[in-house]
């Protein structure tokens, strides 16, 4: 039997008077979805009536502090993802499987976990738990230690075998140290004693969720890094580049020392990274050092590190790049620029696989794969006495030569497309093609700065215009270089002659005007015209 509660309207419910923290208008707004009847309530209102964290103005229907913004914008048809999640409105923090032979425990725990914003399900015995883990990924399994049939430890072993990344927390009503230690040995994350301490379990789950988030982020970042430096990302369909790819594939998984030669801007570091990324050392550090950028003494301390007090200012011990690259790859760029003294030390490391920090006596052994690169012609440097031949032979176990861009012009359209895509994303532009004339110019250009120069040209073209086509006008440097491209480098005299002729043409043969533009006096200009045999038209 039921009876309808005959509760008078709130105006008459004096016990509530002055208790409600919102003023009447605010309450109306706050309660708007339900304010079907006349306004009710008799709150006192005023500034103190405002809930903490909300603005002083009347309508505080915004997003409360610390809340997911999605939840504050609900209209008819709002936030579709809510509906997919049992109509609860939030993305669950983690997927948790509760395994316990007592249905009441399962029910309570699943219920509580759902309230705590987890996606939870239960399994009442070992085999169904294993089936659930095999079918779906679970972040956490809350597993009862003592169950009839297959016990918790056996389930733990199976779960860890199927899904090693799943965190398993053992639950036990009997705090047995021995069984708990055994569970931890078998790979359990922790154990909790029933009845559970809510705060302990809340903290434990939060810790796991935060940790899982970091692990996933780490995996994602590593994957991105691998993709970024995979050799597939080095662009080139030319035969020369295909040979380079083949060489990278061949040497990547060996520990052979590699020497990469090639002009500046050909992508030597990219190849070094690709070798590292495709090797078994890929999860260990890749350390790059530009030897040419550091003075001799600094380079030594950078490479080998130093002990505290080794020199003035060495107030603490510092590990060198060799130590930091332990287990990974050390890439020494511009190796041709290092001094003879450093060459000797480097040779010793290569021969003995050990070194001492500056000012130190203890030998440090490291497992480092060395990749070096230079744009200098090292055999010539050896002939000139600038580079040790024994070191060169040590470094040049495998040689990968990167051809200059002018020798693989068939790669230019591919590279342009690659950089266009890259800078479109970076600068939010929509360049889709290159004007034929511009492409011809780029194909004919000698590219002294190689791929790096091409990258800069495309970046500049995309920055200064809105597209969708890269035009000749966006490549002004070609005009300057025309003379250069036709007949090779100009002498200063040739340059002066060309420039004076250009000015005379521009001023339509008016010598006075041309002299003013060139900031020289008329007499000098006349002398130059005579000297170079220029035409005044």
């Amino acid at each position, binding site marked *: 039997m039921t009876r309808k*509660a005959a509760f008078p309207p709130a105006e008459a419910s004096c016990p509530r008077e002055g208790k409600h923290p919102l003023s009447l208008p605010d309450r109306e707004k706050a309660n708007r979805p339900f304010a079907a009847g006349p306004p009710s309530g008799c709150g006192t209102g005023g500034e103190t009536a405002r809930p903490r964290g909300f603005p002083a103005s009347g309508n505080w*229907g915004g997003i*409360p502090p610390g809340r997911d913004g999605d*939840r504050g*914008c609900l209209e008819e048809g709002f936030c579709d993802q809510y509906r997919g999640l049992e109509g609860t409105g939030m993305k669950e923090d983690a997927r948790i499987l509760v395994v316990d032979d007592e249905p009441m425990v399962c029910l309570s725990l699943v219920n*509580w976990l759902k309230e705590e914003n987890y996606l939870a399900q239960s399994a009442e015995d070992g085999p169904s738990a294993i089936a659930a883990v095999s079918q779906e990924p679970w972040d956490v399994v809350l597993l009862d230690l003592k169950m009839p049939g297959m016990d918790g430890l056996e389930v733990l072993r199976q779960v860890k075998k199927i899904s090693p990344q799943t965190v398993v927390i053992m639950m036990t009503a009997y705090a047995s140290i021995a069984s708990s230690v055994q569970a931890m040995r078998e790979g359990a994350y922790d154990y909790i004693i029933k009845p559970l301490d809510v705060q302990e379990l809340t903290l434990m789950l939060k810790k796991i969720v935060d940790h899982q988030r970091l692990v996933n982020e780490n995996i994602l970042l590593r994957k991105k890094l691998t993709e970024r430096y995979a050799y597939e990302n080095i662009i080139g369909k030319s035969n020369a580049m295909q040979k380079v790819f083949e060489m990278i594939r061949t040497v990547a998984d060996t520990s052979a020392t590699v020497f990469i030669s090639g002009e500046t801007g050909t992508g030597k570091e990219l190849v070094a990274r690709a070798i590292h990324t495709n090797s078994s050392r890929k999860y260990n550090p890749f350390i790059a050092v530009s030897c040419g950028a550091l003075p001799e003494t600094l380079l030594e301390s950078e490479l080998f590190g130093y002990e505290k007090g080794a020199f003035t200012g060495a107030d603490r011990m510092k590990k060198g790049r060799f130590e930091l690259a332990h287990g990974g790859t050390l890439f020494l760029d511009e190796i041709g620029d290092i001094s003879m003294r450093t060459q000797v030390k480097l040779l010793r490391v290569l021969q003995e696989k050990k070194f001492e920090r500056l000012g130190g006596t203890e030998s440090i052994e490291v497992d480092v794969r060395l990749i070096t690169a230079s744009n200098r012609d090292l055999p010539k440097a050896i002939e000139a006495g600038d580079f040790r031949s024994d070191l060169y032979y040590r470094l040049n176990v495998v040689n990968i030569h990167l051809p200059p861009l002018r020798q693989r012009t068939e790669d230019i359209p591919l590279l342009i497309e690659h950089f266009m895509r890259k800078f479109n994303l970076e600068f939010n532009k929509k360049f889709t093609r290159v004007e034929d004339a511009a492409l011809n110019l780029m194909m004919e250009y000698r590219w002294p700065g190689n791929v790096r120069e091409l990258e800069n040209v495309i970046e500049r073209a995309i920055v200064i215009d809105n597209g969708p086509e890269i035009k000749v006008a966006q490549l002004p440097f070609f005009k300057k270089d025309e003379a250069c491209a036709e007949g090779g480098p100009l002498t200063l005299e040739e340059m002066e002659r060309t420039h004076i002729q250009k000015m005379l043409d521009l001023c339509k043969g008016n010598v006075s005007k041309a002299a003013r533009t060139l900031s020289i006096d008329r007499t000098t200009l006349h002398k130059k015209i005579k000297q170079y045999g220029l035409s005044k038209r």
Partner: protein
Amino acid sequence: MIDQSPAIHLVILEAEEPDYLRQVAESIQEQFDLDVTVGKPLGLPTYALDPVRKQYNSNLILKRLAETCPPHAVKVLGLTAVDLFSPIFTYVFGEALFQGKSAVISAFRLRGVPDAKAALGCPPLMNRMEKEAVHELGHTFGLRHCLDPDCVMNYSSGVQCADRKFPFFCPACRELLLWSLKKSMRE
């Protein structure tokens, strides 16, 4: 005469109507915009008593409440003064079946002292019961614990936490509740 419009049904699991009943019912009516009906007192839920723990199993009460829920009621809330426990926790202020039909709250622990006698200077029990009732019913409508410390759906690990929150929903939980209510009515 019984009104058949959708309502939240209150079940008194005591011998007599408690003094906080009126305020709890008013608050539910206001927050959920549904009629509230009250059943006659059913007495203590002896079927849920665990003789070892000397506490009452809230899960069994929830199950019984859901089974005996009158047809007009969208949700049923049990009110009791006995000490409740959930099989996984040492005690609970109240419990609800998440997105389910039933919820139960107890005044026992909300009094703030283990012997269930009112502590000196503690806020009125009825305030806490009101918040707990709205909180647990919120769970039956699919609302989860809210991070807003002022929201009634904020998790209370103790009576102090229950005292600092307000007896109503934050705007986000309110909107979610509205959507859930609409869905319930459609079903």
